[in-house]
C-alpha cells in the first residue's frame, strides 16, 4: 500500500512538473519576475551573435560556412560565461540553423533566442496596416516556430527589434488609409502604434498555440510606444528592449514597471571600443560601460534588494566586430576596419568631443575583435578587455555605484 502511494505521489509530482513549460517566466510573490529553464532560475548572460567575417556583409551565409564559426566561438563564449546567444533572424537553410542551435547547446550548453524582423526591412516600408503584409509576416514566423520549437537548445522567441520607431515615422515610416484620414499627427502615431502592437499580439498568441514551451518577447526600441503595447500587446511574455544609454540604464526598470509591467530582457545594449575623439582603440572605455551596464542588470534581477526585480538578463551587442557596417554599400569598405563614427550618443561621453559629436563606431562593438589572419579558416578571434571584465563580474557579481572614470 505504502509503495503504491509512493508511486502515485511520484507520478503526480512528475506529471505536475511535466505540465510546466520547458522555459517560462515566473512571477514571484514580491511581483518580481524570473526566467525558469528546466525548473531552475536562469539569468540570461547573453550576446548578440552575427559572425560576419572581414570582407563580407550582412548577406553572408555564415550558417553554411564549412569552418563552422559557431564551434570556434562557442568555446570562447563558454569560457567567458555566456549562456545565451541572440539571433536576429533565422536563415532559409533550416538544417543549418538547427545545426548551429544543436552544436552550441550540446557542446557548450549555450541556448539560443531566435528572432524575426517582422518585415521591418521590407522595401519600400513595412505596411503593418495591410492584411496581406500581416499574413505574409505571420506565416514566416509560424514557419520559424514550427521548425525550431522542439530544439532543446531553444530559449525563446523575440518578435521584431526596433520596429516601434516606424510608428513614429522616425525610420521606415508607413501608413494606412485609416491613418491617413486622421488629420492630427499625434493621433496618427497612436493609431499606428495600435495597429503594430495589436499585430504583434496576434502573432504572439499564434506562437503560444504552436509552442507553449517557450516565452515570446516583444523587441522594442527603448520604451517608446509601450503605453500602447500595454493596451494592445498583453500576450507577449517579456519585453526585449534595445537600449543605448551609456553608463546607466537610468530609470528604465521602474519606468517599464509603470508603463508595461512585463519582465525585461536587455536584448541589445553595449558600447563600442573605439575612441572617436582620440582616434584610437580604447578597450578600457568599452569595458567600463559594459561592466556598469551588467551591474545594473544584476541590480534589477528577481529578489534583488535594491532594484525593481523585473530584469531577466541581457544579450549584449555584440560578439564580434562587423567590418561591413560603416559602408554597407561599398564592398571595398567591408575589408577595412572603419574608424569613422556614424552617430552621436552623449551617454558615451568619453569621446563625445569628436568632430560633430559623432562618437559611435558601428564596427567596433565586438567583445571580440577580428584579426585579418586566419585560424582554422576563420578570422582570428581576439578578446577585448570587456571579455575578461564581464567574465570576472559574472564570476563574482559585485554591484556598486560606478563613478565617471574609466578603469586603467
Amino acid at each position, binding site marked *: 500500500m505504502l509503495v503504491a502511494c509512493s508511486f502515485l505521489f511520484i507520478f503526480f509530482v512528475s506529471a505536475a512538473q511535466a505540465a510546466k513549460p520547458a522555459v517560462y517566466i515566473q512571477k514571484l510573490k514580491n511581483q518580481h519576475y524570473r526566467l525558469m529553464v528546466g525548473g531552475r532560475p536562469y539569468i540570461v548572460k547573453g550576446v548578440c551573435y552575427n559572425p560576419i567575417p572581414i570582407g563580407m556583409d550582412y548577406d553572408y551565409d555564415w550558417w553554411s560556412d564549412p569552418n563552422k564559426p559557431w564551434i570556434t566561438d562557442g568555446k570562447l563564449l563558454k569560457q567567458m560565461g555566456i549562456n545565451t546567444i541572440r539571433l536576429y533572424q533565422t536563415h532559409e537553410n533550416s538544417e543549418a540553423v538547427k545545426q548551429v542551435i544543436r552544436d552550441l547547446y550540446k557542446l557548450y550548453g549555450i541556448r539560443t533566442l531566435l528572432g524575426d524582423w517582422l518585415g521591418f526591412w521590407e522595401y519600400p516600408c513595412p505596411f503593418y496596416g495591410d492584411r496581406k503584409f500581416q499574413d505574409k509576416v505571420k506565416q514566416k514566423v509560424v514557419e520559424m516556430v514550427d521548425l525550431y520549437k522542439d530544439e532543446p537548445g531553444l530559449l525563446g522567441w523575440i518578435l521584431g527589434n526596433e520596429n516601434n520607431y516606424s510608428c513614429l515615422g522616425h525610420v521606415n515610416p508607413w501608413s494606412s488609409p485609416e491613418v491617413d484620414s486622421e488629420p492630427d499627427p499625434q493621433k496618427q502615431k497612436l493609431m499606428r502604434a495600435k495597429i503594430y502592437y495589436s499585430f504583434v499580439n496576434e502573432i504572439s498568441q499564434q506562437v503560444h498555440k504552436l509552442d507553449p514551451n517557450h516565452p515570446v518577447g516583444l523587441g522594442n526600441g527603448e520604451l517608446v510606444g509601450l503605453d500602447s503595447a500595454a493596451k494592445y500587446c498583453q500576450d507577449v511574455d517579456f519585453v526585449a528592449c534595445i537600449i543605448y544609454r*551609456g553608463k546607466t540604464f537610468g530609470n528604465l526598470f521602474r*519606468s517599464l514597471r509603470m508603463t508595461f509591467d512585463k519582465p525585461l530582457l536587455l536584448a541589445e545594449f553595449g558600447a563600442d571600443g573605439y575612441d572617436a575623439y582620440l582616434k584610437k582603440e580604447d578597450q578600457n572605455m568599452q569595458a567600463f560601460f559594459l561592466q556598469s551596464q551588467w551591474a545594473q542588470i544584476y541590480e534589477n534581477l528577481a529578489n534583488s534588494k535594491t532594484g525593481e526585480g523585473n530584469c531577466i538578463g541581457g544579450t549584449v551587442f555584440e560578439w564580434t566586430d562587423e567590418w561591413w557596417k560603416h559602408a554597407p554599400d561599398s564592398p571595398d569598405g567591408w575589408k577595412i576596419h572603419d574608424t569613422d563614427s556614424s552617430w552621436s*550618443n552623449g551617454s558615451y561621453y568619453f569621446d563625445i568631443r569628436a568632430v560633430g559629436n559623432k562618437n559611435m563606431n558601428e564596427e567596433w562593438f565586438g567583445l571580440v575583435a577580428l584579426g585579418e589572419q586566419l585560424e582554422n579558416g576563420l578570422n582570428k578571434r581576439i578578446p577585448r578587455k570587456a571579455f575578461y571584465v564581464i567574465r570576472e563580474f559574472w564570476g563574482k557579481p559585485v554591484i556598486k555605484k560606478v563613478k565617471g572614470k574609466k578603469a586603467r
Partner: protein
Amino acid sequence: MKKLLAVLLALTLLVPAMAAAEDKAAASPKEFVIFSDKNAKDNHYIPSGWMGDYGDIKMNDQTATNPHGGTTCIEFIYSAKRSQTQGWAGVYWQNPANNWGNKKGGFDLTGMAKLTFWARGAKGGEVLQKVLVGGIKGTYPDSVMVEMGPIELTDTWKQYTINLVGKDLTYVNGGFGWTTTADLNSNGATFYLDDIKFEVDPNLKPEVKKQQAMPFYIYADRSSIANHFVPSGWMGDYGDIKYDGSSKEDAYLGDTCVKIIYSGKTTQGARWAGIFWQQPANNWGGVDAGFDLSLATKLTFWARGAVGGERIEEFKVGGIMGEFSDSDSATIGPVILNKEWTQYTIDLKGKDMSYVIGGFCWATNVDNNPEGATFYLDEIKFE
C-alpha cells in the same frame, strides 16, 4: 664627544621633521582669499574674464564706499545696454589673468569646503543670475563647476556661501564668477562684492539636492527671478532659429513671452532645428547640476502659431544623455499649433524627475514647415 655626536644626530633628524611640519601647515591653510582689499597680499585670482556684454560692465576694485571689511570693496555697474547684443554679462576671476583654459594655471584647493562672499546692491533688488566656482573649459579645464543663483541682493551687506564639500577642487582656474542678464535687471544694476574667499569648514556636510517646490518655472516673464534653465541648447539647423525671450507680441500672461522664428532655410543642412532649455547653459550632460523635480506631475506651457497650422514635431522634458543624464524623458507631438493661445501638457506621472538638466525642448523640421514657422511660448512650468 659621543654625547655631542648624539645631539648633532638628533638635531639632524629633528630639523627636517620640523621643516616638514611647517610645510604641511603652510600647505593646509584655513582659507584661500580671492579678494579682501585692494592690493592685499593674500588676494588670488584676477577679475579678468569679462563675458557677454562686457561693454556694459564697469568695475572699480578699490571703492571705499561702505566696504564690508577693510578699506575697500569692489563696485560693479552693469548698464544692461546690451553693448555686444548678448543680453547678459559676467566676470570670472581667473589665474592667470585671461586664462580661458588655454594655459596651465589655477590652484589646487583641495581641503576647502566652501566659498563665501559678501554682497549688497546699491538700492536692493538687483539680481545676479548666478555665481560660480569653476566651470572654465579649454585644454586645461576646471575640475569643478558649481553654481548658485539667482540671487536678489539687498541694500545691506549679506554673506553668501557656495558649498563645495565633496567637489573635486584639484584644479580651479575660475575661482569665482558672476553673471546676470538684462532681462533680470532691465534698468541695470550697481552692486558691491567683498571678502571673497575659500574656507575650510570641517562641520559642513555635502549639499543634498533638495526637491524643488512646485510650480517650478522655466519661463514666466523675461525678468522673472522664478525662471530656471537656459535656452542654450540650439540643435540641428541652429542658424535657422531666431529666439526672442522678451517678445511683447500678445503675451499670454505678464508682459512678455518667447517668440521663435524658424526659417527652414536648412542653414546647417540638418533639415530640422530645436532648442533645449538647459541647466546650466550648454549642459549636454557633462555637468552635474540637475534639479530634483520629483514633485512634478506635469509640465504645462502655452503656445500659439503666428498664423496657425505650424507643426512642432516634439515638445519634450528631459532626455539629455551624457555623463550626468536626465533621469527620464517625456514627450508630446507632433503638435499643430493654433493661432490662439492653447495650453499643452506633458504628463510626468510615473516619470523619474529626480534629476533634470534638460527642462524643456521643442524641435521641428523643414519637411513639415517648408516656409518656416513663427510661434510663441509662455508660462512654461512644472506643476
